């Protein structure tokens, strides 16, 4: 029992040390995120209320339930990932105990204690947010959903590690094709063929594109399609940040060959524009197909204008992501995704409210690119 508590204490102390080590950066980021979120809701409060009012009450409820389910899914998957990391990580408390010859019973008890703590914290926070801001489920429904979350957590934890991926034979070694193209095509290939997190987020982006068609087919207000478009743009752009984190961990290979910060960022700007434009085109088509079928193949100028508006909203995250990727720490995908979410909510909502919102992108770009100057070398 004493040794179990010692392991538990070590884990809390480790968390404390990490917080102490990174406190300034983490605190600044947390405060800045809070201020930006609050500003977002303050600025767009009236606009969002008007948009939400266009939805019927049952539809409003359904959106809240969908948001709750998404949050539960994310919570279950993240918790499973953390639990899995602790079980497998060579620097985890469990592995340390194993190396030091700790007996199996204590290690099993530690694993349970750790899992219960993590589940309590993450699931507790999730249910608090749902109950406070989204929807109130009946006690029975809550219990069933908590059971499903636990089941999902267990399933994700037990997923096989993936093993060795099947790689295609190498392309013939050719001479150089220009530095910019080499950097661009290397990353594109990594994102599409190798980086699993990137592949997953690109696939989720396609799902949200399908939501655009579905919501259009059901005749829901344009706001519903805009939300799906923003989600499609955001999740597909997440692929960029997963690749950035991977790139920066092996950045010495590129720094050594004289790749400058500007060239590195320029590559990501092109990649972001490519992803954004591809998904924007997908959103345009998804909306037009939905509108054509819903309106019995009658697509007028107004519908086309709305389709372009949806495409513009989808494009936003891809355009702004490279400007934010190195602001805090490019190796932290989670931090970058939160930053991108805030910026996307601001600019995406502004673009949806009025076309002139697009002007915000170059303004943000000129400031953001300056403030992250040189960080490819300092990451």
């Amino acid at each position, binding site marked *: 029992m004493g040794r179990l508590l010692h392991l538990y204490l070590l884990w809390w102390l480790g968390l404390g040390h990490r917080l102490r080590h990174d406190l300034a950066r983490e605190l600044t980021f947390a405060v800045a995120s809070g201020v930006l979120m609050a500003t977002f809701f303050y600025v767009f409060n009236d606009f969002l209320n008007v948009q939400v009012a266009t939805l019927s009450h049952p539809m409003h409820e359904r959106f809240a339930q969908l948001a709750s389910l998404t949050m539960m899914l994310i919570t279950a998957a993240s918790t499973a990932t953390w639990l899995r990391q602790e079980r497998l990580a060579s620097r985890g408390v469990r592995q340390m105990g194993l190396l030091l010859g700790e007996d199996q019973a204590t290690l099993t008890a530690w694993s349970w204690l750790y899992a219960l703590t993590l589940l309590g914290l993450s699931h507790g926070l999730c249910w608090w947010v749902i109950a406070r801001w989204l929807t109130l489920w009946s006690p029975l429904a809550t219990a069933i959903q908590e059971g499903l979350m636990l089941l999902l957590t267990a399933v994700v934890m037990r997923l096989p590690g993936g093993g060795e991926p099947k790689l295609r034979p190498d392309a013939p*070694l*050719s001479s150089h094709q220009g*530095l910019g193209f*080499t950097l661009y095509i290397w990353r594109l290939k990594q994102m599409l063929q*190798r980086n699993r997190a990137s592949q997953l987020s690109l696939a989720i982006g396609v799902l949200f594109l399908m939501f655009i068609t579905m919501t259009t087919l059901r005749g829901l207000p344009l706001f519903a399609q805009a939300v799906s478009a923003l989600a499609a743009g955001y999740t597909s752009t997440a692929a960029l940040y997963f690749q950035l984190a991977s790139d920066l961990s092996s950045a010495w*290979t590129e*720094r050594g060959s*004289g790749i*400058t910060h500007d060239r590195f960022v320029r590559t990501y700007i092109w990649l972001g524009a490519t992803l954004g434009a591809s998904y924007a085109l997908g959103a345009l088509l998804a909306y037009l197909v939905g509108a054509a079928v819903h309106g019995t193949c009658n697509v007028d100028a107004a519908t086309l204008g709305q389709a372009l508006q949806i495409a513009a909203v989808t494009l936003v995250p891809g355009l702004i992501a490279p400007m934010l990727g190195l602001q805090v720490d490019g190796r932290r995908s989670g931090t970058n995704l939160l930053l991108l979410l805030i910026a996307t909510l601001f600019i995406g909502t502004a673009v949806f409210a009025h076309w002139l919102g697009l002007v915000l992108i170059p303004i943000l770009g000129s400031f953001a690119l300056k403030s992250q100057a040189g960080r490819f070398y300092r990451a």
Partner: protein
Amino acid sequence: MTAPSAPLHLLQAIQLTKSFAPRYQLGPVELGLSAGETVGVIGKNGAGKSTLFQLLTGNLDASSGEVRLDGHKLTPDTPQIKRLIGYLPQDPVLPRWATGREVLGYGARLYELNDIAKRVPAAEAYWDCGSYRQKPLSTLSYGMQKRVALALATIHEPRLLILDEPFSGLDLNHIKALEELLIQRRTSGLTTVLSTHVTAFCARLCSRVWSISDGCLDSIEPWLSLSQPQRERAIEDRFFGTLAAPVRR
């Protein structure tokens, strides 16, 4: 970027400092390296060897002073000058899901080499990476990955090669291959700087040895006139003498 005519040294550090105030300061470092030299750097863990290497490769901003390579000031924005350097970090992390062949091909393209189809297989052959060139790097052992990293650092035959603990993780065959490469580089007039904790390697391979202690760089003298056992003794004397004090962090 105007080059002074015929620089005296290939690599020069002028009043170079790096401060991680209030914990640690490296320098001021004043050094010059000529073509064909092989220099060893020794020092306790955390003494600043890797920081010095990061400064010499232009991958880290100096707090003050400058580094000149072939007469040109070295900064992160001088790609043509940086390509004169090959660098192997202490922990050479490589892209997880790429293969050795892909990483070497990619590196060769970044160096804008013209004969990629010859260079990549030649580097693979020298570092014995050919048998696993199609495997994802994440599935390879540390030593196998290190050989790919060494191949990458040397594929463009750099005029200045900086190796941070290159022998760690290599088996005897590849330690021998690395030693032969360093000797070959010296006879070809190419310059190498390396850090190692193995005194025999320093004694056998280096034409000079620097020690780092408390942020100060100091040369072990005399050196060239000593026999190999005497050199090893000199390194140990320096290490257990002046370097034995705990590093300020």
